[in-house]
């Protein structure tokens, strides 16, 4: 058999690769388009601002939007300070040691745990052991734990990217370490930190399994943090599975996808701000 010349081999392999890549991107675009094409025509102002009528067959998704904002928002409000503080400790207040190795290992492992395990844990710990019931708080605490590693990781990267000279100047002007961290380092790293927070918000919004076991599925508008609330992702799941109303299911999914899209674009924009910042 004659050997194929390297150039021909390259041409063949690279075309296959391009084909694979095109198929991949095509599939992804298809998924988003499939949902949006079926869903967007059904999104109206009433759909966004009204409560569901007759089990979600008619009416809107207002309580789910509020519920999602409460659960995901609270999760991020809880996780962000903890995550940023962890990152500050790891970067500014200590040297690499066994302790930082343990903290990093903890965060890395937490990042890999599947959401259903978080759900099981949240269910037995927050809902039952701490007596919070199926509620916004249980869901938010569970999600906070889930997104914590992302916030730690992105904040750490953002803080490390702050040029060392900034710190030296700050010290030179006589500030304490805490002043240096809060006024110089965190200010400069803010876009990067926000990127992580926004991405975590996106992840909280799209989570289903963990929320199902901790926040419950009540249809009404939650009147306090201890009420159960159905999030958009879970509402979509229930609508599509129960076959209640396909048009409302598609519309709910479209609202979800559009929110995720907006958050991602926002995060991307923030990240670019970080990159383009003068050094």
């Amino acid at each position, binding site marked *: 058999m004659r050997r194929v010349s390297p150039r021909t081999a390259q041409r063949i392999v690279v075309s296959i690769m391009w084909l694979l890549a095109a198929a991949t991107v095509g599939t992804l675009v298809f998924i988003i388009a499939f949902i949006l094409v079926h869903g967007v025509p059904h999104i109206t102002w009433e759909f966004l601002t009204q409560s569901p*009528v007759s089990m979600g067959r008619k009416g809107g998704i207002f309580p789910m939007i509020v519920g999602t904002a409460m659960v995901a928002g609270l999760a991020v409000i809880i996780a962000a300070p903890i995550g940023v503080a962890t990152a500050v400790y790891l970067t500014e207040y200590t040297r690499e040691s066994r302790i930082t190795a343990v903290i990093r290992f903890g965060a890395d492992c937490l990042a890999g745990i599947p959401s259903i395990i978080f759900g099981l844990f949240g269910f037995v710990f927050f809902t039952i052991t701490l007596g919070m019931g199926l509620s916004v708080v249980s869901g938010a605490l569970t999600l906070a734990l889930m997104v914590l590693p992302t916030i730690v990781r992105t904040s750490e990267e953002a803080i490390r990217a702050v040029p060392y000279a900034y710190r030296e100047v700050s010290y030179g002007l006589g500030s304490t370490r805490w002043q240096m961290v809060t006024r110089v380092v965190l200010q400069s790293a803010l876009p990067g930190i926000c990127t992580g927070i926004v991405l975590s918000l996106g992840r909280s919004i799209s989570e289903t399994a963990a929320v199902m076991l901790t926040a419950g599925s009540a249809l009404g508008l939650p009147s306090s943090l201890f009420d159960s609330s159905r999030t958009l992702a879970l509402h979509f799941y229930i609508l599509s599975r129960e076959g209640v109303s396909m048009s409302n299911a598609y519309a709910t999914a479209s609202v979800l996808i559009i929110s995720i899209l907006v958050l991602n674009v926002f995060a991307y924009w923030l990240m670019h701000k970080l990159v383009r910042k003068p050094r």
Partner: protein
Amino acid sequence: MIDGSIMLRLCLAALLVAIGAGCGNSQSHAVKVVGSTSIQPFAELLAEQYVAKNPTLGVEVQGGGSTAGLQAVANDLADIGMCSRLLKAEEEGQYTPTVIARDGLAIVVNPENSVEALTTEQLQGLFSGKIQNWSEVGGEDGPVRPITREEGSGTRESFVHLVMGKERISRRSLTQESNGAVKELVKGDSAAIGYMSLGLVGPELRMVRIDGVEPTAGNVIAGTYKLARPFLFVTKGTPDVDAQQFFDYVLSDEGQQTLESEGLVRAQ
């Protein structure tokens, strides 16, 4: 830099507003109704009408399943439990059950399937895996794909109680977690057979006669269609005032009419 911190504050402010909006109107005491996913849609409908008539009162309906509902009531996590099967002997002492409606279990197949009637024994064979080909029960040659509900579902437990007896549902049966999912699957698969709430069967499925009796609300009332089960509202002792008021609404003529129009059979 300044931009960034303004951005962050805006984000936080927006979130707080969103949360605050949710916290604003606190209600006195929402009646918590938890349990069977088969009853859940009907209870949500009743709750919706009830709250529309009594805007100051709240009702919170939660799924989870019949058994979970009973437990929630036992642990005071819920005022009312929804149970879509008969109480087991060991449960009977603990709770006060009230029948709010009756529901038939419809046996559904794909419209392309030529089988129109089955006996209870044949049904048992189809779900236990003893009958593997539709030709054994008068259909066309082809495999049988039974579709069951998940362990713990009231619909499944009623089906096992009414049809299976001592036999076990085959491990090969596909398991779906809701009436709607069973419906979608049977709709698309000509080899499938499933069971679901009579009230939720749509025109895209064909119901099978069981022991010669047509599955209709009338036959459930007459007692000739045997695959029927109660929908129960379960409380621990006497319910409190708020719960009792919702209870009364459900059993009122208006509540019962709502259930009837959704395809269920009145409690009496």
